[in-house]
């Protein structure tokens, strides 16, 4: 859809967000708490028919962030859902794989390397780490130095 139509439609999901950032005309970040992530993604994927690009898991020291990147290929706009997981001891978030099968691998990857749990994921086996990798060591966390 056109950029102005997309901007207008994104307002429909406003009450589930805690903020919006816009770094340029076609780069939009929707900030939300972990609990809202499924509904926001369902709106983007099902209602707005945006393309799922990939997710980024991130250790932001005081919390974890899961960024689901979506793209509108008509106007070349990236809409990124940035979900904050505040509980560092037991980080968990709703899986979007039941909604988007293409997210299966990346959620398994984030589970492996950051130790984030994905609720309702159909197949949360290891993807990146070897089977004999020790439990509880998550290589992409900041406490693991390069």
């Amino acid at each position, binding site marked *: 859809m056109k950029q102005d139509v997309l901007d207008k439609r994104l307002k429909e999901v406003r009450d589930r967000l805690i903020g919006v950032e816009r770094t340029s005309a076609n*780069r939009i970040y929707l900030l939300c708490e972990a609990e809202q992530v499924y509904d926001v993604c369902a709106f983007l994927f099902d209602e707005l028919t945006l393309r799922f690009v*990939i997710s980024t898991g991130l250790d932001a020291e005081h919390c974890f962030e899961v960024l689901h990147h979506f*793209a509108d290929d008509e106007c*070349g706009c990236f809409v990124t859902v940035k979900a904050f997981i505040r509980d560092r001891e037991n980080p968990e978030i709703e899986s979007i794989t039941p909604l*988007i099968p*293409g997210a*299966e*691998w990346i959620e398994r990857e984030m589970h492996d390397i950051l130790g984030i749990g994905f609720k309702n994921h159909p197949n949360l086996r290891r993807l990146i780490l070897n089977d004999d990798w020790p439990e509880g060591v998550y*290589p*992409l966390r900041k406490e693991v130095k390069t």
Partner: protein
Amino acid sequence: MSETVRKSVLAVGPFHPLQEEMEYFQLTVDGEIVTDIDVRISYNHRGIEKLSEGLQFDQVPFLVSRICGICSASHPLAYVQAVEEIAQVEVPERALYVRTIINELERIHSHLLWVGLAGHFIGYDTVFMWAWKYREPVLDLLEEITGNRNNYGNVKVGGCREDVPDEMKPKILAELDALEQKTEMLTKAVLDDPVLHARLKGVGILKKEDAVKFAVTGPTARGSDVDIDVRHDDPYAAYSALDWKVISQPEGDVFAKAVVRLLEVLEAVKMTREAVQKLPKGPVAVEVKEIPPGEGCGHAEAPRGETFHYVRSDGGNRPVRHKVRAPSYVNVPSFRASCIGEHIADVTITLAAVDPCYSCTERVAVVDGQRQVIHDYASLLQLSRERTARLRKEIGAPDMRLEDI
């Protein structure tokens, strides 16, 4: 009679020392038909995202160009575009054209590589020999411009490291003319060949709705009527200034993907020619001193699809997070949609049709419930080729000869 259902499992992979990547596919088969597929990756995980956090912004392009030898122009380009977005760098026009030229030459050689290998898999070794012969001058051009046949290392934040010298223009244009003629012949030979139609049409179909669900990109998506192309949808480099069209096919089968790639080679030749002719005067880079705090998304259309990089900066001289998504990461899982229900003899070419790395199909073994090896890679390749030969006989088509193309 035992009630235990014994499944036969076809193990594809995980390791082949000649290719650069390892993957392991486990196909569950019922006789000749594939009923399920499971994939295990990461035998060759190099921790590039973590390594990147320890490098300075200007060192990262050299790291990410080593993610893939064939896509070694698109990864650094997507990365520098993400960083340029954070720092809001205005890249000189000439650099945008040089980036376009390098990336299109990369697409040409990558697609020709695929066409050759696809020919090899179905027993058309003539196509293999010719496509790879046509590819060679393209690699020579890249070497002359950047110093390397692959791993060009020519982009940096703010522009390019190497320029396309003006005195090279006539040579590039002459090579492009020769290549266009040969590719047109090859394309015509493939499109007109009744055996290839019989062998590849209706094989490994990825339906449009599955293409959307699995979020596939590049020729894999465009072969399934999803006409997405970063060069068109979110134009970068000099693509918006060039005259070209997005190639897509509605069928979703292996043949459609082959057609998309062949026609894209011709488009890429056209684009490169126009970019060389229009190459503006001026500097090829600007100096970028500091990267401010912020985050950026960069993407580029690699030969296999969209390469996506996300970079976050805290204002220091290293990225605090750098996410890389290569196109095969989303294209490979679509095998669940395209391989189930197919014949074993078609799996080789269906797996190859998304153009992943070939390590997977090089070491194939069929194992039954008693762990007895029935087929290895060679015999599966043989199965694929026999099927081609059988179809050729049924159709009454002559053998393909060198002089035919």
